[in-house]
């Protein structure tokens, strides 16, 4: 129960109201990324609150216009419960501002040129030029050996992972900057996609914008990935043709960058892992909650759904249900592929890594540099395996805390 009454004037100045469908409006705060879908009457009430009307005044006004009585206080309670508006009395101090990633608070005018027509032409040109170079010189295509830039396996893994983390942060920064360009702040968080740990920029506020304005921020990460991929491939292409001289160490470093970027870009195409391409597809098809609806519609075939899950499925939008009929095939194929990938690639690499480390620990002199290298490799491999599990545990704890 909020502290608002019929005489209250709800704080809605920060809310946006966007028509999504014929009698469907998205109401929410882009700054917090909290949205609800309401009918036309709800949207009208928010407009009246924004114009300074109290709950009772807004209810009277809507009743005059539609000829039907409306429970505006109940509607306000729904908005408060959903976290869309602050439920404290209007004379109370405003809620503390949400905490955002600082790069996403850069003024829009400063970052808009990075996502203008010229910039996007550059991003696409970088990707196409890279594909042409790969076709002309197939030896430039990434190979797993490219990660071994030094004979020292641990040093190679360490540098490769530092580079991957830095490149991933650049990818996320570009999402955040693209969000800032359209006035949507964001947060950075560690998440999990299936068996893969990921960094993720939360751009939920984008759903307040019309679909055509969401594509840029969703594709921004892949755009900068394409530029970085081009920047790593082009010098190697010129070097392989004998056009430029480069230190051999730099050539190997660039090969590792190409491998990392190519893997990242390939990962983004796996839509069923809710990657950037999933968001693009969900936006283009007009879906609201495609992934969850698909997951639940499959889950109910093998397990009983909870009351809450049943309600989500029951209230699912028609578009989500329609698209999920074929998307579930991709989703299932993706799950099978992940199991196959784990059996054919993750498990063998884990066996090699742990076997290598064990061999060193048993054979190398105790506490020698090689022995410590074995320890470092064990710790590193364990961290990679345990991180997704850690995210699962963290998310379950958060859910339990939220329900308590």
């Amino acid at each position, binding site marked *: 129960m909020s502290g608002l009454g019929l005489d209250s004037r709800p704080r809605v100045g920060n809310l946006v109201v966007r028509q999504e469908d014929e009698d469907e409006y998205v109401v929410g705060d882009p700054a917090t990324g909290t949205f609800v879908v309401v009918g036309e009457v709800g949207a009208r009430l928010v407009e009246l609150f924004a114009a300074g009307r109290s709950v009772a005044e807004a209810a009277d006004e809507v009743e005059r216009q539609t000829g039907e009585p409306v429970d505006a206080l109940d509607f306000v309670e729904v908005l408060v419960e959903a976290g869309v508006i602050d439920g404290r009395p209007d004379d109370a101090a405003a809620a503390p501002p949400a905490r955002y990633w600082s790069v996403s608070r850069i003024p829009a005018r400063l970052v808009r040129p990075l996502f203008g027509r010229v910039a996007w032409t550059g991003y696409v040109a970088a990707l196409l030029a890279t594909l042409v170079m790969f076709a002309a010189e197939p*030896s430039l295509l990434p190979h797993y050996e490219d990660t*071994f*830039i030094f004979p020292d*396996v641990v040093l190679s893994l360490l540098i490769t992972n530092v580079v991957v983390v830095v490149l991933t942060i650049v990818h996320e920064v570009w999402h955040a900057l693209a969000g800032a360009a359209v006035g949507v702040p964001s947060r950075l968080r560690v998440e999990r996609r299936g068996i893969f740990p990921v960094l993720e920029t939360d751009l939920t506020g984008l759903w307040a914008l019309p679909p055509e304005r969401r594509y840029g921020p969703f594709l921004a990460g892949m755009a900068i990935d394409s530029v970085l991929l081009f920047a790593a491939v082009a010098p190697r292409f010129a070097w392989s043709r004998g056009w430029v001289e480069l230190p*051999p160490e730099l050539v190997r470093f660039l090969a590792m960058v190409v491998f990392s970027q190519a893997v990242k870009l390939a*990962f983004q195409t796996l839509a069923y892992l809710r990657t950037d391409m999933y968001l693009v597809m969900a936006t*283009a*098809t007009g879906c609201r909650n495609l992934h969850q609806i698909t997951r639940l519609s499959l889950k109910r075939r093998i397990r009983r759904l909870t009351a809450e899950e049943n309600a989500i499925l029951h209230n699912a939008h028609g578009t989500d249900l329609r698209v999920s009929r074929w998307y579930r095939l*991709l989703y299932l194929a993706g799950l099978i592929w992940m199991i196959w990938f784990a059996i*054919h690639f993750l498990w063998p690499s884990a066996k090699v890594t742990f076997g290598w480390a064990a061999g060193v620990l048993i054979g190398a002199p105790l506490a020698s540099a090689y022995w410590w290298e074995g320890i470092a490799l064990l710790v590193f491999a364990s961290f990679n395996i345990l991180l997704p599990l850690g995210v699962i545990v963290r998310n379950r704890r958060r859910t339990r805390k939220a329900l308590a």
Partner: protein
Amino acid sequence: MKRRWLGTVVSAVVTVLSVATMSSLGVGVLLGLTDDTAALSCDRVPGTPQPFEGERHIPYEGAPHEPYRTMPPTSGPHSPRVVVPGIYRDPVPAELQVHVLEHGHVLVQYAPDVPAADVDALERLGRRHPRDVVVAPYPALGQGIGLTGWQRLHRLDRLDERAVEEFVTKVAGRYDHGWQDGATDCVSS
């Protein structure tokens, strides 16, 4: 209507990309299983075959092991560390050389007496075969150029680009943790 059309096109593209990414690894595995390219017969492989000296990993460089019977080595105990194909300006330790060969690559090594122009030519050749060749100095050779593959050795007193090119194209990939496509070591037959 426009949105429905856009949704269909984007969905098709995203699905194709997803399937292409997933299948790219599978296709690689399947191609490996179905590849019926026969290996070259022993009489067409350049260099001389060398006896098998083992393939076990030693725990660290410097760990004691049986001495290699060839210079440079062509098989035997080796370091688990990895040297990837490319150009190197420092010698690659013998224990690492064997690991390079175990991965199916070829080593092109030169002694201090090889002229700088010839070293440039060898490095250019390395650039043309960036997935197959390690080019590096190896003073222990004493003189000339040493070409090695797994259980394969070819020594040259001076640069013969055609011979090097032939060795690289015909020896690389014959062995990769096992003989490939019906290839043999050409010793035990």
